[in-house]
């Protein structure tokens, strides 16, 4: 019997020769990721259920990356990071990226692959819905709640249902004005906000494999915005180069059978895709940038696990070079590695830091989730009024960036940069 890549990874993790959609199976977990928002509750569940003296099932497989509420005066937020610190110490966990120390990284979904914790063919669960990001490296990765994570901490296993696979094939060559964000927003627009509920979203085709690993992460990151259980792109030479540069742990890439049954297949031609936005308040509210130029904006935001990677800042910088922004433009590198690269990467002979300063952007924030999810009132970039924001983030839910009155338009870094220059939604081709 043939299997898709998702089915094969799950079968392997369950020690079974064959699985099919709908099967409920116990899988062994390779990595459990948690952060400051869900980590304390997960630890609470673990200690309540397994006892205060219990040990985690495997110290090397637990990765704790505080990232959500870091640069805030909120006392509970600090207490929560302290809870993580205490647990890490008690359990002797080696993979902890502690705020305020040189090991601090920032947004977990960019930090996890950077740290070499994502490897093709493995099973990753995280207490965050965007854990699906890591399918970009050919892994099975999915978000779970604290209770399931507490169960994994104690046992290293989880009972899950094998998802059906929906395949999305993107043929052709991606034009230089189209980014991964435009591809995934188009797909979500086509299938709807719950169009992939309970399903694996498999992305394939030459245009997908043309993308950098960071761009592939943008695509898999947003699988959850269509309700997907996981997003996945099979590993290739680019994947291997990325992973080998970051870890020497062995891994075995897994590939689907060419004739495996999939629930559905949609085919796109990359050449026909255009820069787009998702209008408030759901990510499936698809519209072309060139048809929404009447939307006046109050601010622009570049950051988060979806849109705060170095490739996102380079794209924005290429467009902003030689221009000035008309609206406050907030920049939040996802991780410390990205923040450092803003000094070393150059566009037009200038460092990105210099280029953004010359373009009149706001001072660059330290790496964290920041206003991607609103957060405590003193969070950098948080909305407080009825702002219209164009953002490289992944969710435009009501109140997502803080204020319920503000409106969020999701777009690629190129489109956000172009719109920052004009002050209204703008197709980046106007500046290319």
């Amino acid at each position, binding site marked *: 019997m043939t299997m898709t890549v998702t089915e094969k990874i799950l079968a392997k993790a369950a020690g079974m020769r064959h699985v099919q959609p709908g099967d409920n199976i116990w899988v062994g977990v390779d990595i459990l990721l948690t952060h400051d*928002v*869900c980590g*304390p*509750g997960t630890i*609470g*569940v673990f200690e*309540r*259920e397994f006892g205060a003296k219990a040990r985690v099932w495997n110290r090397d497989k637990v990765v704790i990356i505080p990232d*959500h*509420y870091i640069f805030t005066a*909120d006392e*509970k*937020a600090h207490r*929560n990071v302290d*809870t993580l610190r205490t647990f890490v110490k008690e359990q002797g966990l080696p993979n902890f990226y502690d705020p305020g120390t040189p090991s601090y990284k920032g947004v977990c979904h960019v930090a996890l692959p950077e740290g070499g914790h994502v490897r093709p063919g493995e099973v990753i669960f*995280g*207490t*965050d*819905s965007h*854990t699906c990001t890591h399918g970009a490296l050919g892994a099975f990765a999915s*978000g*779970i*709640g*604290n*209770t*399931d994570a*507490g*169960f994994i901490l*104690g*046992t290293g296993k989880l009972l899950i249902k094998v998802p059906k696979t929906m395949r999305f094939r993107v043929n052709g060559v991606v034009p230089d004005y189209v980014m991964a964000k435009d591809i995934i927003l188009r797909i979500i627009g086509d299938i709807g*906000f*719950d169009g992939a*509920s*309970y399903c694996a979203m498999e992305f394939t085709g030459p245009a997908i494999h043309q993308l950098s690993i960071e761009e592939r992460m943008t695509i898999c990151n947003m699988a*959850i915005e269509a*309700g997907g*259980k996981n997003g996945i792109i099979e590993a290739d030479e680019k994947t291997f180069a990325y992973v080998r540069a970051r870890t020497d742990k062995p891994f075995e890439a897994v590939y689907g059978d060419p004739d495996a049954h999939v629930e559905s297949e949609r085919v796109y031609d990359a050449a026909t895709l255009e820069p787009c936005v998702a209008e408030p308040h*759901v990510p499936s509210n698809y519209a072309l940038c060139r048809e929404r130029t009447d939307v006046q904006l109050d601010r622009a935001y570049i950051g988060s696990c979806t849109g705060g990677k170095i490739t996102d800042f380079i794209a924005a910088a290429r467009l902003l070079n030689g221009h000035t922004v008309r609206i406050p433009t907030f920049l939040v590198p996802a991780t410390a590695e990205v923040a450092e690269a803003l000094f070393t990467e150059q566009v037009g002979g200038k460092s990105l830091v210099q280029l953004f300063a010359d373009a009149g952007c706001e001072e660059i924030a330290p790496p964290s989730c920041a206003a991607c*999810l*609103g*957060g*405590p*009132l003193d969070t950098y970039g948080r909305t407080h009024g009825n702002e219209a924001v164009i953002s490289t983030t992944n*969710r435009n*839910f*009501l*109140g*997502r960036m*803080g204020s*319920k009155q503000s409106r969020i338009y999701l777009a690629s870094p190129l489109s956000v940069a172009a719109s920052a220059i004009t002050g209204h939604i703008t197709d980046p081709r106007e500046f290319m």
Partner: protein
Amino acid sequence: MKTILGKVYVVRDDIDTDQIIPAQYLNLVPTIPEEYIKLGSYALCGLPDGYPPFVAQGATRSDYALVIAGRNFGCGSSREHAPIALGAAGIKAVVAESYARIFFRNAISTGELYPFETPQRLCDLFKTGDEVEIDIDGARITRVQTGEHYRLKELGAVAPVVEAGGIFAYARKSGIIS
């Protein structure tokens, strides 16, 4: 016959986890008892303006016992704070046309509430404040005043997990873990 009786609160499609519990309250840790109660007091406070208050000003629990919703209830974040906030506010069941996967799973794992699905669009047929009764085993919702009733999808294997109080209690009861 196990039943849930009380007033219903009606919402529509795509109620996301930021509406159920806005991110600003995620500094609260659900396993700390006082903070569990606090989470309940903020349940559904992220709904658009125009909805009646779900939890009265100054109260920690809701006057409603059930939520009726449209499609894709609980979409968005994996935050377990969402079913917990509803459970802490006193909600015993949600009846929706469909759920986002992680919310559905979290509702069961925590044992906070029964996530019933319905083939009908009940959010068009009920209004906030209606008195209803849910027969859990019989998978049926009844409007108390008129007696008219609607079928719910059977919960199947999920029901005993919620009833036991969540996945750990259930796993112990059935000998999966010690």
